[in-house]
Each structure stands twice: as structure tokens, then as C-alpha cells.
């Protein structure tokens, strides 16, 4: 073999230790434990989001509500609340709102606005009024004075009626006629000595006397008829007099009480007006509060149950007690009723009834005049809530709707309470995908949520930012009542933040993840009876988290070690390579090696991706494979039709394959198969490739390296094993300590690869070779071997065509 094509002296060198892991630099922050650090409040590293939040909360125009998006676990609501708390102090405390009975139309309760904190006073004043009325009204209606006046009215009627009937009776008696009661009415009868004349005797009377009696009775009948016709009119007069007496009595009883109730609210015209309405209602409807007596004549002696006074109660819908600032309300369960309020019902004799006292406030009532924080996903998942929220923002008022009535669930009488003017800043929280989907599918989103606050996932890992994040760690520990962390522990937490950010030069801002680590490390320190959390505690917590979640990883590795899943970590094979993939399940991700193989033969110029053919490959993966065709077509045998059939497969892969991070590995396998040169099996490869053969960055580089390392380490490190990663991914490396230790002692290596030529040289030990000025690749190089093989395939194909055998079968 020509020396020109063996692995050159400039062959790839493994990465240095400093490139595999970047330690924290806390030199700008002097402390021994986090107890000495000043806490940091508000948003860290979120200048863009902070600016948006400040703008959104301060601009006082319709539609300028906020939609806050960012990664899960960024604790956006907490961060926003910290900002809002500051803003809220500068805003006045909003009004109180109460619902009162509508005495004209009880189905439309009246909303009354009161200055902050006065609703409860109003409620208490009306409650006292009711208590006083409960005592005063019965007392006055049972008083001797009332009874006497009432008795006089009744007596007057009785007297009038009695006099009329007595006069009739006396007049009749003078003419020997008596008034008799029949089962269904009254009759007049001839009498003698106070007894009805027996019929035999009557028939023996002379006809003239009988006729005279008859005429007399007929005349008296007219009188009787006249009196009886007058009875309803007299009764009406009596009722009117009783009603007037009741009104006068009620007015006497309530006037002073009403004036007392009004005295506290002279400055509130609307309240005074309501109390006056109560006075009028009490006086006009006093019969409602005074029960019937034992007879059915509407006597006023006995009082009805106290709940008849409920109509004068006050339903305090929302009140601001104590806090002289705008409210900040977070509704975690934004069902329609919890959001806009509800109307409750109570069963009464089998029927559901309601009244103004059963109107319950929703989150939007409590937040009115301040801020309402909602999780966008929860709002969208609750039926009708999203539409109701938009409707209220459009109308600028809160109208409580009984959704059961709209859906026909209830057919009972419901209420239509007065809508309440709305002045609230709604802040929705959600992930980015949700926001972008909503923006695409609901054009009204932009109308009502004009301000977007986009939280960063991470921030640059400068010494200053590391110091800031250290203070954040201290704040989190303090807020949760955890033990302080020493410097080394903080350093490891920050390094974990960089690992979480998948970038050695960045720090994750997903504070919830940091908090979880702190809590677990605190537990470990407690178990070890340490008063300060050490680096070992943090390390132990990180390892424990992995251990708890790594059952699937361990089973996968076990399958490889037991050769159920075939992965070689030594030797060399043609058309076979170790690719690397990442599996993420339940928040834990791990890398695993996968054998990729390739077979070639003459064909129509097609590279077949078997994953795609069986619909196990995703579109991005398929794209990566199709790029390989483009690479071959653009690099080799440009004067010859592509006459290749190649098949690529992820061996023992029975699930879906997505992503193009294995496309460089597939290309290496393809080149190996074409060049008929074996590939090293002690190396694994990750990275995507473009049509020019440049290796491109991929995700999950740390997990992939560690995944292959774990297999090699368990089989015994040989010193030649390693992983080829894209050059662009070097900046993302924050590898596990055992991997770094192995690299430090030369037992493992990580190689940065920029081009396919670099990679194939390392994998085969043979340089790829660049096309010379003569247009040919150096002899013996991988590229030359591939090109020759492709030309050979073309010759075979031409030979078949010239023999008239037609084209090769299309594969």
C-alpha cells in the first residue's frame, strides 16, 4: 500500500481533558458556603423576558395581556410573580364588589361597587339591620297597640256586617220571619214563637196570609241579597285598612333602623340608594315577613322563619382585606366556574332553586384590578374556559354564565347577574410549542395577548453568570430551608447546569431541575449527618437520580454484554460500524450503540434505507440517508452513471428511528463496503453529514459517548476505544467523571471530526485521499477504492445493457 494513503501523521488527535469537561470558575465570588451569599430575587438571566413582562404589565391598553413561554421547570409563574409583586405595590387596591337582591326583578341581581374593604362593612351593617328587624318587626306586630288597632279594624267590619244582618234579622223578626242557614246558603222562613212554622200549619193558613208572608219574604230576600253583595266590598275595605296599618307599623319599626344602617354609608350614593330600596320593600311587603295566624285570614301575630330576611343580605363577591395593592391571583384549575364564577343551587322540596346569595366569585373577579395568572394548557383543556376568557377580555366585563343551562343540563330558573366591569391583566404560561400552535390556529390570540415574554433556556457561562447562578442556588436552598452548600458543591451544581444545558459554555436556567438536585443533595447530607452540603452529596444525588431512572439503560447494556444485541468493541469489519443513538424516556436520556451495516452491488444508483422501506425511519432520518446518495453522486465517478445498489440498516432495531445523527456512520459503512476496507469496531460514531462530506453537529453528544464508554468499560477498556464526534459538538461536552478519568489515562478517547475524510481515515487506518490535479484520487486511498468500485458497477451494468438483457432489475 502506498504510504501516501496510509493514516497520515496529521491524523485525528483525541480531545484534551479540558475539552471534555469545563470546571466551574468561582474565583469572582468569595464564600465558603452559600449561607454567606446574598439571595437573588426575580428573574436571573432573563432580560428579554423581564423587559416584556414590565412592558406588558405597565401598558394599560386593551389586549396587552401577556403570554409567557419557556421551558418546563423554569418556574416562570414564580419568577413572574416576583416581578408582579413589585408592580402590584405601585397600583391601587381595586374596588370591592357585592351582589344584592334586585327587588324589581329577582332573576337579575344587582352588582354594587364599593371602595376597598368596605364590602364587609356593608355586609355587617345589613346583617345587623336584619338581626334588628327580626326582633323589631315581631315585637311591634305583637304589641298591644298593634293588636288593638288591628282588632278595631276587624271589629269595625264585624260591626258593620253584624249591624246589617242584625237589622235584617230584627226586621224579619218583626214580621215573624227568621233567617236560616242551609247546607249551601241562606234562606228566610216564616216563624212563630221563634220557631219555623210547621208546613201543615202554614198550609192551613188563609191564602191571603200565605201570600202576604210570601211577599214579605221576597222583600227580605232582596235585603239579604243586597247585604251579601256588599260583603266582598266591605272585606276589601278591611284588607286595605289592615294593609295600611301594616305599612305604617312596619315603617315605624324600620325607619330608625334604616337610618342607622345608612349612617355609615352617606358617602356612597349607590349603597344609600340600595338601603332605601330595602326600606321600601320592607314596608310594601311586610306581609311576607309576618306569617298567617291560625286562621286563614292573614293575621299578623306570628312571624315566618328568619330566612325571609335573606333577601336583604349582602353577597360579598370580592373584597380586598388588608392588602393595599393590586391582587395577584393564580388559578390552577381554570374550569369555567372557577374562572368566571358560578351560580349555585340548593334543593328545596325536590326542586333546585337559587338566588343572588348563591353567586360565587371566580378567579377573574378576585383578580379584577390586578393580575390573573393562568396555565395556558389548563385553560385550553377545560371546556368553554378559553372562549369565555377571550369573550370577557373583548367585552371588558365579567358576566357569570350558567353553562349548565346552555347545555340543557338544568332547566330550572337561573340568574343573570349584573356584569362587572373588568380591568385585569391576564398572564398565560405555556410551553413554546403550545404558543406557536395556538398562534397559528387561533387568530384571536394575537388580539388579546399582544405581549410575548419568552424565557431563555440558558445563559452564557461567564464567571459573572456563574457567580449569579451560585447566588440563585443559595436562594433556592434558603427558600426551601435546605442546608447551605460549600464551594465545591456549588461548583458541581453549576457544572450540572451546564450539562443540563447540553453546552459547556452555558448554564441551564431550568431552576426546578436545580432545586430538585439541591433537595436530594440536602437529603444525602442529612443522612450523612453533615450540616453543609458537600460536592460528594451533590454527586451522590446526581448518581442516585441516574440509578433510579436507569433500569432500561441497564437492561439495554446487559443485552449487549450478553451478545443478545450484537455490538463489537474490538476488531474490524467491512460495511459495519457502531452508530450511537439517544433514548429519552421520562426525563432520563441515555446513549446506546447500534450496529449499522451496509451491503453494495451493481444497481440503478439507489441507496436503500431499510428503516424507511419498512416505515420505521422518520423523515429526518430518511433525509440523512438520501443525502448519502447526493454525496456519492457529487464525489465519485462523475463521468459515469451511478450504478449502485446499496442497502443500509440499523441492525436489531425494532422501533422507530428518527434524526440524522447517524448519517455519517451510515456513510462510513457505505464507503467501507464500496472500498471493501474494514472499519474499526472499537470506535463508535455520531454526527450527521452533508453532501460535501462535512460532519455536522448533533444532540445528546454526552449521553452518546457515555453510552459507548459504558459497554467498553464493562468489557474492559483496551486503550484503543473511543468515539468520533462532530467537531462542532466539542463545545457541548460535559462528560461524566469516569469517562474523563479513562481519557486521562489513555484508556478511552474522544475524537473531533470535521469531515468524512478525517473520520474514514481514523476508522480504517487508510487516508481518504484528495482528488489530484489529474482528476484522480491517490491510489490506495479510500476515495480511489470507492470510485473504482463504482466504475466497476457501471461497467457491469453497461455489459448487461449491451448484451440486450435490458437494464438490471430496478432495486
Amino acid at each position: 500500500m502506498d504510504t501516501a494513503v496510509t493514516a497520515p501523521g496529521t491524523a485525528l488527535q483525541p480531545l484534551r481533558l479540558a475539552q471534555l469537561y469545563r470546571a466551574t470558575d468561582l474565583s469572582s465570588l468569595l464564600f465558603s458556603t452559600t449561607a454567606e451569599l446574598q439571595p437573588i430575587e426575580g428573574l436571573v438571566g432573563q432580560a428579554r423576558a423581564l423587559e416584556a413582562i414590565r412592558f406588558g404589565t405597565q401598558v394599560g391598553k386593551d389586549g396587552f395581556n401577556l403570554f409567557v413561554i419557556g421551558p418546563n421547570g423554569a418556574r416562570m409563574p414564580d419568577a413572574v410573580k416576583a416581578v408582579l409583586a413589585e408592580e402590584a405595590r405601585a397600583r391601587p387596591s381595586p374596588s370591592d364588589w357585592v351582589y344584592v337582591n334586585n327587588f324589581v326583578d329577582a332573576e337579575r341581581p344587582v352588582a354594587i361597587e364599593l371602595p376597598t374593604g368596605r364590602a364587609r362593612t356593608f355586609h355587617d351593617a345589613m346583617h345587623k339591620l336584619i338581626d334588628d328587624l327580626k326582633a323589631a318587626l315581631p315585637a311591634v306586630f305583637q304589641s298591644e297597640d298593634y293588636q288593638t288597632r288591628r282588632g278595631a279594624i276587624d271589629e269595625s267590619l264585624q260591626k258593620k256586617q253584624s249591624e246589617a244582618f242584625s237589622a235584617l234579622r230584627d226586621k224579619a223578626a218583626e214580621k215573624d220571619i227568621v233567617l236560616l242557614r242551609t247546607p249551601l246558603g241562606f234562606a228566610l222562613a216564616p216563624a212563630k214563637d221563634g220557631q219555623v212554622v210547621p208546613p201543615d200549619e202554614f198550609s192551613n193558613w188563609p191564602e191571603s196570609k200565605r201570600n202576604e208572608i210570601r211577599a214579605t219574604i221576597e222583600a227580605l230576600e232582596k235585603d239579604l241579597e243586597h247585604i251579601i253583595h256588599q260583603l266582598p266590598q266591605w272585606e276589601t275595605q278591611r284588607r286595605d285598612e289592615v294593609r295600611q296599618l301594616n305599612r305604617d307599623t312596619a315603617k315605624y319599626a324600620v325607619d330608625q333602623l334604616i337610618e342607622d344602617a345608612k349612617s355609615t354609608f352617606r358617602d356612597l350614593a349607590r349603597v344609600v340608594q340600595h338601603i332605601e330600596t330595602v326600606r321600601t320593600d320592607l314596608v310594601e311587603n311586610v306581609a311576607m315577613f309576618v306569617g298567617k295566624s291560625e286562621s286563614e285570614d292573614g293575621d299578623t301575630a306570628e312571624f315566618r322563619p328568619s330566612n325571609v330576611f335573606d333577601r336583604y343580605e349582602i353577597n360579598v363577591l370580592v373584597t380586598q382585606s388588608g392588602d393595599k395593592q393590586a391582587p395577584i391571583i393564580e388559578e390552577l384549575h381554570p374550569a369555567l366556574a372557577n374562572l368566571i364564577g358560578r351560580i349555585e343551587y340548593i334543593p328545596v322540596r325536590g326542586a333546585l332553586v337559587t338566588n343572588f346569595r348563591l353567586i360565587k366569585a371566580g378567579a377573574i373577579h378576585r383578580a379584577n384590578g390586578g393580575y390573573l395568572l393562568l396555565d395556558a394548557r389548563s385553560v385550553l383543556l377545560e371546556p368553554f374556559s378559553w372562549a369565555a376568557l377571550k369573550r370577557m377580555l373583548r367585552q371588558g366585563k365579567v358576566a357569570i354564565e350558567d353553562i349548565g343551562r346552555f347545555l340543557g343540563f338544568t332547566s330550572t330558573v337561573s340568574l343573570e347577574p349584573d356584569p362587572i366591569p373588568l380591568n385585569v391583566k391576564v398572564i398565560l404560561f405555556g410551553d413554546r410549542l403550545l404558543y406557536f400552535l395556538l398562534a397559528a390556529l387561533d387568530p384571536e390570540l394575537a388580539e388579546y395577548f399582544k405581549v410575548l415574554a419568552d424565557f431563555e433556556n440558558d445563559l452564557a457561562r461567564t464567571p459573572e453568570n456563574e457567580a449569579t447562578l451560585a447566588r440563585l442556588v443559595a436562594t433556592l436552598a434558603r427558600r426551601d430551608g435546605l442546608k447551605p452548600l460549600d464551594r465545591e458543591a456549588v461548583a458541581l451544581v453549576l457544572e450540572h447546569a451546564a450539562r443540563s444545558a447540553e453546552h459547556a459554555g452555558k448554564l441551564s436556567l431550568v431552576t426546578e431541575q436545580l432545586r430538585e438536585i439541591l433537595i436530594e443533595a440536602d437529603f444525602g447530607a442529612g443522612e450523612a449527618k453533615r450540616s453543609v452540603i458537600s460536592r460528594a452529596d451533590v454527586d451522590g444525588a446526581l448518581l442516585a437520580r441516574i440509578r433510579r431512572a436507569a433500569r432500561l439503560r441497564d437492561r439495554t447494556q446487559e443485552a449487549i454484554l450478553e451478545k443478545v444485541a450484537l455490538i463489537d468493541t474490538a476488531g474490524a469489519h467491512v460495511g459495519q460500524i457502531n452508530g450511537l443513538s439517544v433514548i429519552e424516556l421520562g426525563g432520563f436520556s441515555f446513549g446506546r450503540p447500534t450496529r449499522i451495516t451496509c451491503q453494495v452491488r451493481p444497481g440503478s444508483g439507489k441507496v436503500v434505507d431499510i428503516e424507511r422501506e419498512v416505515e420505521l425511519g422518520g423523515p429526518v432520518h430518511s433525509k440523512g440517508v438520501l443525502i448519502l446518495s447526493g454525496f456519492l453522486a457529487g464525489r465519485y465517478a462523475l463521468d459515469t452513471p451511478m450504478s449502485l445498489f446499496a442497502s443500509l440498516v440499523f441492525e436489531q432495531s425494532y422501533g422507530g428511528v428518527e434524526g440524522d445523527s447517524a448519517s455519517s456512520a451510515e456513510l462510513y459503512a457505505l464507503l467501507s463496503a464500496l472500498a471493501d476496507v474494514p472499519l474499526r469496531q472499537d470506535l463508535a460514531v455520531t454526527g450527521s453529514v452533508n453532501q460535501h462530506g462535512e460532519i455536522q453537529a448533533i444532540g445528546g453528544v454526552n449521553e452518546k459517548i457515555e453510552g459507548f464508554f459504558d459497554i467498553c468499560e464493562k468489557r474492559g477498556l483496551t486503550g484503543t476505544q473511543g468515539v468520533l464526534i462532530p467537531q462542532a459538538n466539542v463545545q457541548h461536552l460535559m462528560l461524566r467523571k469516569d469517562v474523563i478519568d479513562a481519557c486521562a489515562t489513555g484508556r478511552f478517547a474522544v475524537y473531533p471530526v470535521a469531515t468524512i475524510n478525517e473520520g474514514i481515515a481514523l476508522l480504517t487506518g487508510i487516508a481518504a485521499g484528495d482528488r489530484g490535479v489529474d482528476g484522480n484520487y491517490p491510489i490506495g486511498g479510500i476515495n480511489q477504492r470507492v470510485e473504482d468500485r463504482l466504475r466497476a458497477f457501471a461497467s457491469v451494468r453497461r455489459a448487461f445493457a449491451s448484451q440486450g438483457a435490458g437494464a438490471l432489475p430496478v432495486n
Partner: protein
Amino acid sequence: MRVAVELADLLHLDLLGLLIEDTSLRDLAKIPFARELRSLGGGWRAIHLDQLSRDFELSARSIERMFTNAASRLSTRYQFELVRGTLAETIASISRTGDIVMIFEPLNPAERATQQFTWLLQAAFQSAGAVMLVPTQITRTKGPIVAIAAAADDPSIHAAAAIALAAKEELVIIEADGLDANDPHISTFAANTGLTIKRLSAAKIALPDPAICAQAFRQTQERLVVMTRGAFEDTAASAIAAARRVPVLVIEPLSGAEAGH
């Protein structure tokens, strides 16, 4: 009817509901031009004997049903009877000493003007039993029992005391001839019965007058008034019932002690 049941229950008395089919109506029905003015706009209708009998029967059934419903909760015996005859003779033949004849003042003043009501009152007060007059409207169902007494040994005091004990109420004695502060009867009686007794005085002659009557009772919220027949004017009982709107029990002069026992 409810008042009658409550009283019977309170005093553990048997209850007899008596519906008297007045024979004078049958006599009237035989007079050729007899007719009745039916209530509730029914107009004038000729009275026929067979129709009258049917109307009575229907009324009797209805009244008996109401009576039975009301009396069914009684622990004592109860009975309903339909009797044909004159009011005076029927009541006189049925009532015994110790009975209480309850008369409910008619709601309709026309009924009060009828000859039958006059006969009823006369018959009741001529009967051997006590008479309870129940006004059209009753103001209270709880409160003291009032005895209006002409003297410290008035039988009404014993009768009222018995009812007060049964009803667990206070006894108020209105002494119509003025208070005798040294009268030992009342204090002895109070000690013997354990009753709380309050004493008031009133002018006997003025009691039928509603205004004077109210003054005599002062702030008493009584549920029942007891008085002795013959001790006051004949109209006093019905006047007090109308003025106070509570039942008035008029007892026989000699039956008070028995009632007390």
C-alpha cells in the same frame, strides 16, 4: 276543630263531634215558595227536600272526614255523630256535667245572624256542661291561662289552674271585684299547686268593653280565658273572646272544682 282537639288532648278528654241536621230546615223545604240564596254567587234556588237531604249528607261526610283527620292524633276516644232534631233538644239531651260544649264563632256574619246560631248559643248555655267560645281568629296558642274571678274562691280559678298545670303555663287571676292583698286562698293555692300565679284587678262591669278589657289584661299574652257562668253579664264571654282573640271557657258555677280536679 284543631282547637277542640288540642283542648281535648291537653285535658285528656274524649271528643265528640256533633252535626245536627236542623229539622226546621225540613219544615221550610215543605213550604212551596221556599228558596235559598247560595253563597259564592250561586243565586237563588228553590229548596227541595230530597236535594236538601243530599246536601246535608255531603256536608256531613266532608265534616266527618275533617273531624277524623284532626282527631286521629288524640290518645283519648273520639266520635262523630250525625243527629237529626232541634238544636236545643239535641244539645240538652246529649250534654252532661263535666262536658265542654265548644262553639266556634262563625266567620260569616250572616251565619251569626241566623236563627240557628241563636238557638245554638241558647242551647249551649242552657246545657249541663261548660261552654267554650272560640273566636274567628286566635292570636296566640301559647301563654298564660287567665281566670276572671269574682272572688278568691271563684270556680274559674280551679279550672284555669288545672288547665295551666296541664299546659305548663302560668296562671293569671283577674279579680273583677278588686284585689284583696291579704286573701290567703291564692297563696295557699299557689303553694299547693306549685303554679306561678299573677294577680290583676279589673272593674267587673267594664270587661265587655274592648278598650277596658285590653287595659284590664295589661301586657298579659294569654292563650285562654276562663270565667264562671253567671258571674258576669251574659255578653261578657263573647265580648272578651272577640276583644282578646283567644278562646273563653265559661264553666258552670258548681263544676269548677270538678274541672280543677
